[in-house]
């Protein structure tokens, strides 16, 4: 088993569609009532593209991101990733894609409180490799994790626990964890939503830098200023995708 540490993406400017959704619908039961959150949503993301899905709270943007990231299943519609229909893949295969090809950054960071910064960053690698493979490649994996943390200015806090970090630092660690396995798509769900303005700008700087390096990013936000930093803005309103200026 070997681990390649190539750049996150080397196909910047590609016109190839990496991820596409056609006719996605999703509803939730709220007591007796059924709320239709997504109504026949279509979208596509090209390799190396940075898209922002903008919408108000409750507009279904996080739900859309979860469906695109194979965290949840749509009631109807197709999500194709690399030419494969995600819904038709076995559960184990979807888990593998989530682990090796997708990375997630959440609004509330979602770090494991028992693990320190380095261990949280290594979590995706721990899931990817068996105990034996992880042990035999531990020096390389740790080096990779430290490189990622260094690039996010978190190299000095390796042994700190999430409770000992600020919000911005936690989000950097969450980004580092998402980048650990060199994902093809980075999903960011309101990455600045829980941060002060200054820290939010720093985090967006990090995402922009990643994008410049060729990382495909799909971000949802309610903040137009944040969304403007993406290549393309899609607006989700009442469960439907609208043009950005609508």
């Amino acid at each position: 088993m070997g681990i390649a540490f190539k750049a996150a993406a080397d196909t910047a400017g590609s016109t190839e569609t990496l991820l596409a959704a056609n006719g996605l619908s999703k509803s939730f039961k709220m007591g007796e009532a059924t709320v239709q959150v997504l109504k026949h949503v279509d979208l596509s993301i090209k390799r190396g593209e940075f898209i922002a899905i903008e919408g108000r709270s409750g507009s279904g943007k996080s739900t859309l991101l979860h469906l695109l990231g194979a965290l949840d299943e749509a009631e109807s519609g197709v999500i194709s990733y690399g030419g494969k229909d995600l819904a038709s893949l076995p559960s184990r295969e979807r888990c593998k894609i989530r682990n090796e090809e997708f990375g997630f950054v959440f609004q509330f960071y979602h770090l494991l409180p028992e693990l320190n910064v380095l261990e949280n960053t290594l979590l995706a690698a721990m899931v990817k490799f068996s105990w034996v493979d992880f042990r035999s490649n531990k020096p390389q994996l740790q080096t990779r994790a430290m490189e990622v943390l260094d690039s996010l200015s978190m190299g000095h806090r390796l042994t700190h626990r999430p409770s000992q970090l600020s919000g911005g630092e936690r989000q950097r660690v969450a980004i580092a964890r998402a980048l650990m396995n060199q994902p093809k798509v980075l999903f960011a769900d309101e990455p600045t939503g829980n941060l002060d303005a200054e820290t939010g700008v720093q985090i967006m700087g990090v995402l922009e830098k990643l994008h410049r390096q060729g990382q495909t990013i799909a971000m949802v936000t309610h903040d137009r200023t944040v969304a403007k930093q993406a290549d393309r803005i899609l607006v989700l309103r009442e469960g439907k995708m609208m043009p950005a200026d609508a």
Partner: protein
Amino acid sequence: MYKLTLILKYLRKRRIAWISLIAVILCTAMVIIILSVMGGWLKSFREQFHGIVGDIEVSRLGLSGFPHYQEMMNEIEKLPEVKATAPTLQTFGLVNIFNQIPDGVQVIGYDIERIEKITEFRKSLFEQYELQSQRLKDPKTSQPMKDAAKSVIDRAASFAKPFSPELYRSIWKDAFPRSTVDANDFPGIIVGAGVVGIERQPDGSFKGRDGIQYAWVRLTVLSMGEGTTRISEQNKSERMYWIIDDSRTKLWQYDQSTVYVPFDVLQKDLGMDERTEDGVLKPGTTHRITIGLKPGHDVAAAVPKIQQIVNDVLKRHDVEFSGRNALNVRGWYDTPGTKDFLAAVEKEIVLVTFLFGMVSVVAIFLIFCIFFMIVVEKTKDIGIVKAVGATSWGVAQIFLGYGLAIGIVGGGLGLLAAYVIVSNINTIHMKLGDWMGISMWDAKTYAFDTIPDKLNPTHCAIIVSAAVLSSLIGAVIPAIRAARMNPVEALRWE
């Protein structure tokens, strides 16, 4: 890798899980201690009964005995599996020891040279075995003393008196100046340690032995021949003995109330010796034939062969014992007293183990509750690990592994705790007695003066395995719940 990492982290950081760990430790230790003490108690009983009774006995109900035992013994000894046989008498008597201890006792008549080849009786004797063994083991013992101790152990056990005839006559004369009997004619008697008040001290030494070998005993027995309907003065037989040794079989009912005398002497006193009455030769009788088998031979297989010999001898002499009076051949474990006693102890062990096993079920429920709480508390973590690619089975494995780890650590520590407690249980018991006046183990109740202090490896392996399995079972439902959790719902969980 993430599973092991999270299991170890949860084990170290989630202190609530330590409650399950403590529950597993306590339950494991408790059941091992109970089974070790009770199982050790039963094992001791079996060994001691076997050691006293021999492998097989031929006996009948009542005190009148049976004839032609010599012939039976001769024929039984011809069986290739039989090592030796010995006639044994057993009756009740009254003792007066040195005018200080009047008591009712069980009297056993032993052909001591024969019985030594069959039972462990020799090892129960203080002067003829225990003391000599101590001297041989003691590095401070001089070589001549060691040689002397070895020669005592090497020669056959006996009722022979250890002192000169003059000494016995002199002791008797001092006590009874006007007596005309020759005190050296008194045969030797071995007394149960408890009969003369000898007590084992916590340090292993004995209290109350001083001077007992200079003490005389007056033993009164009553003969009860076949068809005896009432006891008269003529049935009474009184005889003087000198104490030559004391016996500690470790079976309380033997040590506390039994004296051992030469077979031929007791046989005569009970009127069971060969004698001519009204011109008719009456053969000698005995209460029991004790039989020892050679090592490796099956008791159950030998019993029917011996029964056949016994029946043949009785038939040859036209003697018939039937119904309640039948002459029975039994394996040691089937002998009256032994069988009922061992069965009662076995039932008690099953009952106590069952009761404590039920208590241990509480531990499984506790683990289940705590794990359920942990799964609820860790819902968000489950969402996170699923978001980074963990499978449902992988998530289930975290909690199953967590349960397994608690079982292994708890079971291991429980075993260690049980080992420490059981190994030192007599010291702990003694200290509890010293500090708080608590005495849980009474030799009168449990027959042995020390609490069994050995762990049974098989029992330990079964109990620790049960602890591990129980912990795993306690974690199954929470693990299934965690595995089924939708990652998005888990991440949104507050």
